[in-house]
Structure formats: C-alpha cells, structure tokens
C-alpha cells in the first residue's frame, strides 16, 4: 500500500518535471498585470495567478523540474564522493580512515541546513552553487554508512578467499566489496533525495539558492507568505506539491530499504 502511493506520487512528480513545457498552460515567466492575483478557477489559470500575473500551475510544474533536477544531481554527487571516500577509508583503514572520520565528525557537528546555507552564501547564488552547497553538506552520511558496511563486508569469507588468492587491492575493492555495499548506498540515496528536495526549498525560501524569477517551490512559498491573507493559493499549491513529492520519494525510499536491507529498518 505504502509502496504504491510512493510510486504514484514520485511518478507524478517526475512526469510533471519532464513534461512541464507541454503541460503548462502559460510561460511561467510571463507577467500579466491585468490578471494579477486571480483565484484558482479563473479562465486560463486553473490554479490562479500570483501578484505579477504569472500562472501558478505553470510555475509549479517548472518548480518540479528544478526540485527534481537539483535533488537528483545532489544525490549523484554525494553518493559518488561519499561512497568512494567511505569505500577507501573502510578498506584501507589506518590513517585515511581516522582522518576521514574526524572530518565527518566535525562536519556533522554543524546542522545540515545551516551548513548548506552558509556555504551557499559564501559561494554565491545560482543553480550550480546550490547543488555544490548541498553536496558539500550532504556527503558525510554516505561516508559514515559505507565505511561501516565495508568494515563488516571485509571480514566475509569470499573477500578473505579472494585476497588469499592474491587478488589486487583495487580489484578487490571494486569487484567484491562495492557490489555488496551498493544496497546501503542506494537506500541512503533514496532517503536523502527527499531531504535534499526539502532542503533546497528551505534554502530558496530564505532567499539563497535559486533566485526569482526562476520558478522554485521554496521562493514561491516565500513570496506567497506575504500574500497569505489575500491569496492563499500562492503558498498552498507549491507547498502541497513539495509535501507530496517529499512524501512520495520518502515512501519509495522506505520500500527500497525494506526490500534491499531489512537490517536498516526503523
């Protein structure tokens, strides 16, 4: 049951993101002051318009595109960097492992959102920098999880046997250890995906990250907040889209985790 809801919601979000240019009734950036602040149900604007007359539905669909793109890229970068570092640290042990773990501890002492926001403020705004900021803050989870997994997989018989047969370290790492660690990477990635989407929305809500007029759910919520008294739809729809997407991806991640690795079940 949870699984199907997760799949349905995620599929809807992906569809919205991919098909946005065709599904959107108007250009999300086009302003039309004669139509500003129209409520949902106005002709040509099923979800209403904002204070500049831009169509809410169109902006929502393009916002999905941005959210999923940023989430996807960030997951890819963090899984790659964190996974690789964790793999090497767990495999080689001794000083690389200690150094990495101290680094991870230090970075984990900063709350994720705060760290991502600070890095973003320092690096400058824009799409590329928000992905980099979120990645810089988010890779540590992988490093920790993967290192732990590698430490335990290393002890298993087939790894010891392969090592005894004289297999080289690199080959051992990538051909034997990595495939067994992959499920945990996938599970963490799917759980992190929804966190990254919400984090990106939070950061653009506060005024960093992606800047207006580019449609992003976070900045739409922030603008909508100013008009909460007179135009509830400006905040309600992007917020609902965000909540449902995060829920869908979360449920999907839960199902993946239950299937791939019941030990991680909470």
């Amino acid at each position, binding site marked *: 049951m*949870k699984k199907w809801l997760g799949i349905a919601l995620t599929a809807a979000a992906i569809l919205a993101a991919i098909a946005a240019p065709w599904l959107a009734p108007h250009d999300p950036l086009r302003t039309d002051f004669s139509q500003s602040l129209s409520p949902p149900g106005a002709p040509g604007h099923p979800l209403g318009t904002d204070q500049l007359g831009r169509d809410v539905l169109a902006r929502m669909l393009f916002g999905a595109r941005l959210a999923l793109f940023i989430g996807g890229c960030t997951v890819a970068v963090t899984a790659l960097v964190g996974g690789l570092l964790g793999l090497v640290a767990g495999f080689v042990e001794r000083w690389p492992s200690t150094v990495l773990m101290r680094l991870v501890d230090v970075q984990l002492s900063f709350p994720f959102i705060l760290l991502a926001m600070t890095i973003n403020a320092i690096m400058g705004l824009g799409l590329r920098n928000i992905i980099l900021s979120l990645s810089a803050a988010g890779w540590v989870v992988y490093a920790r999880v993967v290192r732990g997994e590698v430490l335990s997989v290393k002890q298993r018989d087939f790894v010891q046997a392969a090592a005894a047969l004289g297999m080289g370290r690199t080959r051992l790492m990538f051909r034997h250890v990595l495939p067994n660690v992959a499920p945990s990477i996938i599970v963490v990635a799917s759980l992190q995906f929804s966190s990254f989407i919400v984090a990106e929305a939070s950061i653009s809500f506060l005024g960093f990250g992606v800047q207006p007029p580019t449609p992003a759910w976070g900045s739409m919520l922030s603008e909508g907040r100013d008009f909460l008294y007179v135009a509830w739809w400006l905040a309600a729809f992007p917020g609902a889209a965000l909540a449902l997407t995060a829920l869908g991806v979360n449920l999907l991640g839960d199902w993946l985790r239950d299937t791939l690795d019941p030990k991680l079940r909470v």
Partner: protein
Amino acid sequence: MRAYVVSRLAQTALVVFLSLTAVFVMVRLSGDPVLLFMPMDIQAKDVNEFRQRLGFNDPLPVQYARFVGAAVRGDFGESLRYRRDALGLVLERLPATLLLAGTSLLLTALIAVPLGVISAVRRGSLLDHLGTITTVLGQATPGFWLGLLLIYLFSVHLRWLPTGGMGGVAHLVMPSIVLAAFYSARIARLTRSAVLEALGEDYVLTARAKGLGEGRVIGKHTLRNSAIPIVTLAGLEAGQVLGGAVITETIFAWPGLGRLTVQALLNRDFPVVLAAVFFISLMYTLINLAVDLVYGWLDPRVRLS
C-alpha cells in the same frame, strides 16, 4: 568508566578545535574580508593601508593564530551591522532558542514515546496503523509548509493565535508544534522498533513466565533496554533543533539563533556568522558528549569496550 569519559572529552576538544578551524577557513574563502569593513567608494591605495592596519596582510598562519586566540576568549569581533560584540549578540538570542527547543523536545517526549510504546505493544492493531500513517506524514511534511498551514488556519482564519514573534504562551504554541511534529515522527518510529526488539528478547519471556504483570514487564524491563537508541536519537535531534530550527524561526519571526544566523548571512555580517555557526556547533558537540556519557552509564557494555 573513567577512561571512557576522558577519551570522549579529549575527542570532543579535538572536534571543537577543528570546527573553529573549519569556520575560519569558510569565511576566508568568501573573498577579501577587508572590503566588508570599508565604504563603497574607497580608493585602492587606502584599502592596502587598512589591510595593513587591521592585520590582514600578515601571513595566514598568524591571522589564524590570532583568530583562535581571540575566539578562545570569546572575542569574535564586532558585528558589522549592529556595531556590537558578535558573541554577545549570539548569547542574547540564546534563551529564545533554548525556550523553543526545550518546549518542542518536551512535546516530542510526551507524544512520541508513548505513541511508539503503544504501537509496539498493540502491534498490528488499528492504533498501530494510525500511528504509522501519522509518523510517515509527520516525517515527510516539510516543516515550513506545516507552519504556513497552521498560521493560515489559526491566525488568519480563526484568529486564535498570533502570527509570530515572541511573547506569551500563545506565541510559543505553533512554532513548537511544528518542530515537535517532525521530531516526534522519527522518535515514535524508533521507539516502536526498539520496544518491539526488546519485547522479543529472552528476558521478557522469562519475566512473563515468572508471572510478572504486563505493566511491570514493559515498564521495568523493556523500557530501560530500549532506551539506548532512543536517547541517542533524542540527543542528536536536540542538537539539530538548536541550530536547525532556522526555517521555523523565520516563519514565526521567533528571535532565536537560527534567525540571527540567516539575517547575518543575508547582510554578509561575517563576524556574527562566525560566532553563531561556531556556537551552534559547540552546543551540538557538547550535547553529543552528554549523550555519550549517558550512554556509557545506561549500557555497561559500552564502557567496558
């Protein structure tokens, strides 16, 4: 036990020191700090003179040593915007954040733990399923959407509660509910699985075979043993609430640390950013230390390892 405490303290000191370094590096990476102090129409030659005077021409290790020396004494410089001591500003906002964090954590403990225990004990029942749905929703709903919804419902429509700011109890209600919703979800789920696991252990079977009442079995034996992961998570979340309540504080205009940091970042007020970020990480590290020490007290296996 003493060796464990000493080793944890040493590790904590190291982590704090490294955080200070990390904060220093981050701010230096943001570009020439001298330009922040200067008015816009400054001449290039004057910039150099100020740079010399403020000590930014010294080699980086010297600047770093000076920074660490000052930081240890609590001197993070002066806020560029308010012209007051940076750390002083941070400490001024601390009570507000502590109040919000404390209330949310209390709410979380009161709601989540009983919910988790009941879900575990009455596993598979309607209550359990309802609990699962609520927790999944609570974990996935972004805090700020819930916050905006609550403001719309209770402030705009019903006019029962104020929209924001700090004042009486009425101002505290919505922000703490928003924070508690997210954290209760995780703790409830964890409590449920921890209690379920403990209920499957042999000593519970023995206790029941001895004829011990169900209440005693759960209260006396199960809870103590399931407490460990719950305490760990609660501790981690306490640390997160202190610094990560940024969004909630902004939505409800709560004058706390998170909001101060956001405003400082928007104003490029780097002394305050430095002081705030470091202070938050310090609190988080200290809470982790406290959790580890409690851990060692709760579970003898940890101290002896």
